[in-house]
């Protein structure tokens, strides 16, 4: 009985971490699909989400919802500024230089966060208390439920946006063939900017909902960003189901590994998976083979 309860516990926390990884991975995929670059500053938006919410909530005593909204708005503004100042001016640079620029931006954002908020680790209060719920013999924190429901909402909204709205379809068209997209009148630069807006907003949301469970500090972005990168690699750089599965798989393996092998290997597991995937199946576990006729 104790064993199975423990297992359920590991699975639950694995899934909730996995949901976060999937959200962060989405951010990577959206920008990659729009621009062909891997935005290694993605993790910093996650950090900004958590730290800004903490800042408004705890230091300025704002209520929870306005704090979250402000945190997302500010992180998104940082995302826009990043695209306008660091990515757009270099329109003809090759993707590798741009990737290096994103690493630079990541260090810069992290540095500024450290100067502003210091190096302390903070706990963000849970959204609806810390009273655990008992479901089917397992204890679940209310925050887990928040994570699951917000993740599902974001994934559903993403799906609706990219499959049914004209702007979402235009972004996909742009990702597939930007020249043909501009020939139908789509402004490619706007679409790139929009991809940064969406990824930074999703990233900061992920950072906000995970912060009550894992604590937050100026440097959480590195690890969370890399885990999200790992999720999207498993998912084959898609902004769809593949990355969700990738994130959940990663979260589960991590949490089971930490539980049954050793907690000190938690991070190592993610990177072993990342390396394995890159060596054996670099196109990802869930990438669909595209049927094409020419």
């Amino acid at each position, binding site marked *: 009985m104790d064993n199975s309860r423990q297992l359920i516990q590991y699975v639950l926390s694995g899934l909730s971490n996995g949901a976060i990884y999937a959200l962060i991975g989405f951010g990577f995929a959206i920008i990659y699909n729009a621009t062909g670059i891997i935005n290694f500053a993605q993790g910093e938006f996650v950090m900004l989400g958590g730290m800004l919410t903490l800042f408004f909530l705890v230091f300025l005593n704002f209520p929870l919802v306005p704090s979250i909204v402000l945190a997302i708005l500010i992180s998104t503004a940082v995302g826009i500024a990043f695209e306008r100042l660091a990515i757009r001016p270099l329109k003809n640079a090759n993707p590798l230089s741009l990737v290096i620029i994103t690493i630079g931006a990541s260090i810069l954002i992290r540095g500024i966060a450290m100067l502003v908020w210091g190096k302390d680790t903070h706990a963000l209060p849970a959204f609806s208390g810390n009273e655990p719920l008992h479901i089917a013999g397992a204890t679940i924190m209310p925050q887990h439920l928040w994570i699951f429901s917000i993740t599902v909402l974001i994934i559903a909204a993403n799906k609706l946006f990219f499959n049914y709205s*004209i702007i979402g*379809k*235009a972004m*996909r*068209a742009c990702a*597939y*063939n930007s*020249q*043909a*997209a*501009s*020939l*139908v*009148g*789509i*402004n490619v630069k706007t679409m790139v900017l929009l991809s940064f807006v969406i990824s930074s907003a999703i990233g900061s949301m992920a950072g906000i909902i995970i912060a009550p469970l894992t604590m937050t500090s100026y440097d959480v972005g590195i690890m969370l960003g890399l885990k999200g990168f790992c999720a999207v690699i498993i998912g084959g750089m898609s902004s769809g189901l593949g990355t969700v599965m990738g994130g959940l798989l990663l979260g589960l393996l991590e949490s089971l590994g930490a539980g049954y092998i050793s907690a000190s290997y938690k991070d190592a597991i993610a990177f072993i998976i990342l390396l394995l995937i890159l060596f054996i199946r670099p196109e990802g576990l869930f990438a669909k083979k*595209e*049927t*094409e*006729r*020419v």
Partner: protein
Amino acid sequence: MLKIKNINTYYGQVHALKNVSLHLLEGEIVTLIGANGAGKTTLLNSLSGIVPSKSGEIIFAGVPISSLAPSRIVKLGISQVPEGRQVFKPLSVEDNLELGAYLHYRTAAGRAEVKKTGDMVYALFPILWERRKQLAGTLSGGEQQMLSIGRALMAKPKLLLLDEPSMGLAPMITQEIFKVIESLSQEKKTTVLLVEQNARAALKMANRGYVLETGKMILEGAAAELLENNDVQRAYLGKDKKEIWER
């Protein structure tokens, strides 16, 4: 309606268009012929703003367009059917057409018109209606070409630029597509600039033609005259060759 005056366009170091001039009158079909690498596609891309020209003037309906962004040029009424079709393969046929009308989604009046334009395109290419839910990547080459033309028409262009619509297609399909182009010009009064390697078919349909060679415009004239022209016959129509490839 369109005037190109002495434009020069470069691809990096390559001087792709050298003092090229061309004009189109309203309602005309004009064809641009020339060998591979002559600069035909470059000319269309300069017109569409994808590869802006370095010097010279392009005036469309009285508006200088040589420094405008591609989306502004589409908005003014120039749509291009690009070389190799370039449909959005991961999206459905319906979505491809919808994106063709992307600029019309900005206004309520435009949105209302989109369905009508869509019906017009489906009437032109009934096969697209049958395949509307399929991904564009699963269509045959001819169907993709029809989709690409349909997508361009969704923007309701006044001037349609077609880049080698017959490339890689069976003669039957080519004929079908050429018929549609002809009917567009006759019924919808769309002006057409047609780039073709299949020079004979293009010249038969067109009112006038231009011949481009290594970035320079070397000949222009009525299509019938060009068909008779000795140089054109030798270089592009395969004079002295049996005409089995051509129905």
